[in-house]
């Protein structure tokens, strides 16, 4: 019974935790610019993420190591420090984007500019971590994140042509705007395949004391949860394609993206979008700040648990406190969160090999996984998607910088 409850909660968590400013902004931009043509990128990213999340849970359940702990032990500190530097920098940028997303949502809901929200929002996120427990953060934020299901309602109510939607699932090369197309595809892949989600998930499995009996449950959570999450992203893309593309509106600003649901749900859709993004970005901001703190604590052998009072794991608490304060600074200075979002998503895609290649080596190491190590299917799926993301990133990021 307890496991069934955990299972439901796990699926709900992953659905609620999937969408954040990155996946919404990239999917909305893709729909507005290219109609359904980039749906394949979401499909590809989601499939890859299903495999990666399943592996993260399996590693924790079998070896009792989080990804970070195993990476430090297996590859040694010099290599680990390079992974840490890359991952923490990218995660920090994503955190700025998420905090900005909360600020922009509040700007829509209250009329007060997002810069004014930077400090209160950071303080609120910090307070939730300071006072909250792991399950409060995991379940609470994600349950609220279920408001994002409204994207599916909006997309269906706009009556898309399902035939053309299905066509979008097969990759095609557009006639013009090839560089932009590549860049948006990379950003979608980066937004779907978020390494911080894996670090968070594997730390959660250790916090919840998983053992090998959780392997089947882990598989179902990863499969169903990420699939539903992928559907939500696709719904955003479909709604954007119907709402924006015919009118030639491109989504450069958050307020433009907020018009996504208005054709289906009128002005309520505008506020519902803001509310959905508020909760989704809040959940993501919590997960990312914790992931960064986990990275330091696990990598350096400090005590860590979101369930301890802060003074019992002071270095861990200090890291998330400091990181959340620093992340507010660019927002106070007025840096555009949407620009940070697109940049951080593309950078995530470019740095994926740094996170995923050592992870795949671990997942094939019998000393960590024994008989539960990866089979050839999971190895090849992940390797191929990461290769595609990396190649696309290396080609399209410079083109975007030159072109933009």
């Amino acid at each position, binding site marked *: 019974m307890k496991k069934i409850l955990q299972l439901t909660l796990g699926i709900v968590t992953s659905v609620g935790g999937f969408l954040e400013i990155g996946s919404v902004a990239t999917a909305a931009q893709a729909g507005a610019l290219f109609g359904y043509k980039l749906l394949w990128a979401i499909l590809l990213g989601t499939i890859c993420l299903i495999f990666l999340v399943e592996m993260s849970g399996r590693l924790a359940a079998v*070896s*009792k*190591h989080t990804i970070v*702990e195993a990476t*430090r*032990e297996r590859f*040694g*500190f*010099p290599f*680990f*420090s390079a992974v840490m530097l890359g991952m923490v920098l990218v995660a920090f940028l994503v955190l700025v984007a998420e905090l900005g997303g909360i600020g922009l949502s509040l700007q829509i809901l209250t009329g007060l500019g997002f810069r004014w929200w930077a400090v209160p929002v950071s303080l609120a996120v910090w307070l939730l971590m*300071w*006072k909250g427990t792991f399950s409060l953060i995991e379940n609470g934020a994600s349950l609220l994140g279920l408001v994002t299901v409204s994207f599916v309602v909006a997309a269906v109510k706009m009556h898309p042509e399902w035939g053309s939607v299905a066509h979008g699932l097969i990759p095609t090369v557009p006639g013009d705007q090839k560089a932009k197309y590549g860049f948006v595809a990379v950003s979608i892949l980066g937004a779907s395949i978020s390494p911080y989600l894996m670090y968070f998930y594997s730390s959660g499995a250790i916090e919840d004391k998983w053992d090998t009996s959780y392997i089947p449950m882990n598989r179902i959570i990863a499969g169903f949860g990420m699939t539903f999450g992928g559907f939500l992203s696709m719904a955003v893309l479909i709604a954007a394609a119907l709402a924006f593309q015919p009118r030639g509106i491109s989504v450069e600003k958050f307020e433009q993206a907020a018009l996504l649901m208005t054709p289906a749900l009128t002005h309520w859709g505008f506020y519902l979008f803001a509310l959905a993004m508020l909760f989704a970005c809040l959940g993501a901001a919590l997960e990312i700040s914790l992931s960064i703190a986990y990275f330091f604590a696990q990598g*350096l*052998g*400090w*005590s*860590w648990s979101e369930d301890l*009072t*802060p*003074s*019992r*794991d*002071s*270095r861990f*608490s*200090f890291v998330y*406190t400091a990181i959340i304060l620093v992340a507010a600074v660019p927002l106070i200075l007025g840096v555009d969160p949407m620009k940070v979002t697109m940049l951080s998503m593309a950078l995530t895609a470019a740095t994926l090999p740094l996170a995923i290649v050592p992870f795949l080596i671990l997942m094939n190491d019998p000393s960590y996984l024994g008989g539960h190590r990866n089979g050839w299917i999971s190895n090849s799926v992940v390797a191929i998607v990461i290769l595609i993301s990396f190649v696309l990133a290396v080609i399209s990021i410079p083109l975007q910088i030159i072109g933009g």
Partner: protein
Amino acid sequence: MKLVRDVLDKKLTDREKCEMGRVDGLLMRVGERSQPRITHIVIGGSTLWMRVHPALARLSVRLARIWGPRRTEPITIPWSRVESVGKDIRLDVKARDTGALDWELWIARHVIERIPGGGSEEEEE
């Protein structure tokens, strides 16, 4: 036992299972006639950064002089205190007495406990 695979970078816990860092380095005695022997486990900033680049190690020593518990020497624990080597390495010591928790305690006292709701690390001992 393979030192690099089984010992280096593993997590250290004390006799009360308190986490006290990772094996950042190992001290070895190489005698002319005897076999090389591991004498100490080393925990600490400069040893760790030395493995990446000596300049980083120098920087970490310089920073440690101006901020924090002001410990510039790495912590060494005699190999004889190793109780078991498994997923983690268990030591027959009390973490607090070794100096491995200096930073943890310093940050608790100087930062975390001064923020409301941070709790007190000594109260709960």
